[in-house]
């Protein structure tokens, strides 16, 4: 009965007059969605549009915004700190995202071995990813201290050079990448769920054909995991571009002034934060966030496009 009514609803006549069922569904649907929709319009769409407007103004957060056309954007092009922050953020993202994928994959493969206590390891690996980033960053400030930090003590013990992690601009971003890896446990579990979803028969028939462990990984695991890897890349990209807390804590939360040696920890969001909430340059900061928005979309689009060449959707269920 419902099906019959629905097919009437879909007929040509209904383009002008909705069927009873559809009208009812629309009414209820909008009713259910309205709390989200209202919040989304008031606290999502309106702020975004207002940010676009503010980016064309000079505004300190007090008095009225003054329209100045595209002056903020031309200022941005000539601002060396903008370029520095963009460079730092892209450098960090380009490093942290692939490293994160590899670490998560490695952890997932290790957890996928037939080991009885695997649930203990799962808990241990996962836990750091739900701890506050600021607490983890604190820990790393001490671990990475060149004088007494444990990381350098270990490096010296095995005869490796011990860099000044937080004092040498060549190493500060590596410290950020290391901190980000403590969040890898979360992705490892997502990867693990993907690994568990691969039909065991594929491996069995590959073994009959004499495939070794590496060959099986290369020809079965990796292709079937590409959708999960793409998912990680997209989310990782968006998180990477927004990196702030770890850089902020490593630089002493602004207490030491500046953003690390040679501004090497001045990430894009850090710069945006300084301009908007420390220097009262709200118009300029709005322009910065508009540029960030555009770059995020372009990069995500580029990753999707690139992924079309390697993502394997063959085994996807409907």
């Amino acid at each position, binding site marked *: 009965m419902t099906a019959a009514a629905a097919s009437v609803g879909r007929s040509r006549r209904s383009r002008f007059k909705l069927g009873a069922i559809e009208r009812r569904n629309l009414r209820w649907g909008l009713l259910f969605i309205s709390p989200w929709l209202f919040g989304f319009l008031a606290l999502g769409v309106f702020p975004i549009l207002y940010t676009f407007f503010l980016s064309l103004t000079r505004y300190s957060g007090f008095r009225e915004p003054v329209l100045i056309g595209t002056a903020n954007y031309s200022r941005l092009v000539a601002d060396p700190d903008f370029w520095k922050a963009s460079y730092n953020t892209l450098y960090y993202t380009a490093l942290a995202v692939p490293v994160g994928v590899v670490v998560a994959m490695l*952890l997932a493969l290790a957890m996928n071995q037939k080991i009885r206590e695997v649930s203990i390891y799962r808990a241990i690996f996962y836990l750091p990813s739900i701890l506050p980033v600021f607490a983890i960053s604190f820990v790393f400030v001490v671990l990475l201290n060149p004088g007494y930090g444990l990381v350098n003590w270990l490096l010296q013990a095995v005869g490796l050079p011990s860099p000044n992690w937080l004092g040498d601009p060549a190493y500060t971003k590596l410290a950020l990448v290391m901190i980000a890896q403590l969040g890898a446990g979360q992705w490892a579990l997502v990867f693990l769920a993907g690994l568990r979803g691969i039909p065991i028969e594929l491996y069995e028939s590959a073994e009959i054909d004499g495939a070794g462990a590496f060959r099986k990984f290369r020809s079965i695991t990796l292709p079937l995991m590409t959708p999960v890897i793409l998912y990680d890349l997209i989310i990782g990209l968006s998180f990477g571009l927004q990196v702030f807390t770890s850089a902020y804590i490593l630089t002493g939360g602004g207490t030491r002034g500046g953003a690390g040696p040679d501004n090497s920890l001045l990430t894009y969001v850090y710069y945006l934060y300084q301009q908007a909430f420390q220097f009262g340059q709200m118009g300029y900061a709005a322009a910065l966030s508009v540029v960030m928005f555009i770059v995020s979309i372009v990069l995500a689009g580029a990753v999707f496009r690139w992924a079309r060449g390697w993502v394997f959707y063959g085994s996807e269920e409907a």
Partner: protein
Amino acid sequence: MEKAEAIPARGVPRFRALSTRRLATASVWYALLILIALVTVFPFAWILLTSIKGPTDLLFSTPPQLLPHDPTFENYGHVLDALPIPKFFVNSIAASSATTIFNVLVASMAAYPLAKLRFRGREAIFYLLLATLIVPAQLTYIPSYLLARTFNYYDSLPAIILPSLASAFNIFLMRQAFRGVPNELIDAARVDGAREWRIWLQIAMPLVRPTLATVAIFTFVTSWNDFLWPSLMLPTPDNKTLPVGLAALLSFFSSDFRSVAAGVTMTVVPILIFFVVLQRQFVRGLGGALKG
């Protein structure tokens, strides 16, 4: 040995060779697991031990001294004296709980028609939702700050609760769960004359309880750990949440690392307890996130 080779099945010796090789690879993975586990646990164990070190215990030495000879809780006392920790704690609980309740309610309401009611514009709303995932939160920061000032909720908890009212990701998870509710159940209820909100509340919601738990847990933890936005919105010390408030340790105790360690332990322990209690839901939730 010879007997084994005498058995005609050609695969047998090869199978045995394979199993010793398997043993070898298994032990490599084992070593790797233990190594990573140590690397992961060590920093936190070390912070915990440092936080109970007395004034005569060495903090930094080579080789490092791990166990305190003179354990004390004094460092916690220092932190509690310097900062209104109980207030931070109450603020964090209140903000995270409110954010969680709103998210569970709003997300499960919005997701139900997206999964179960056919109407024109449904796909458009869904794609709108998808698009919000790529938008960086920073794009809304300045206007959200101005809104909070205009409507007088700046420097109070609503300033951090309202902007995270409903995450698109939660709606996705809930939509995925509702799609698993059998249509027959819903149609039967309709035939019985049940109204849609009753079908949602009394039929669909009980069936998606595991996903509700996942959404609640992840929202709570995310909100608890949130740093940048609360630090912008809550300038008065008494109004701060735990992570933001404890970040003041950086300037207060920059030379007293024992107290910093005590403060860090205080932020980590609540999440630790939360995790231990709800471990199964956490892990199941991540598996579900993949399908969503």
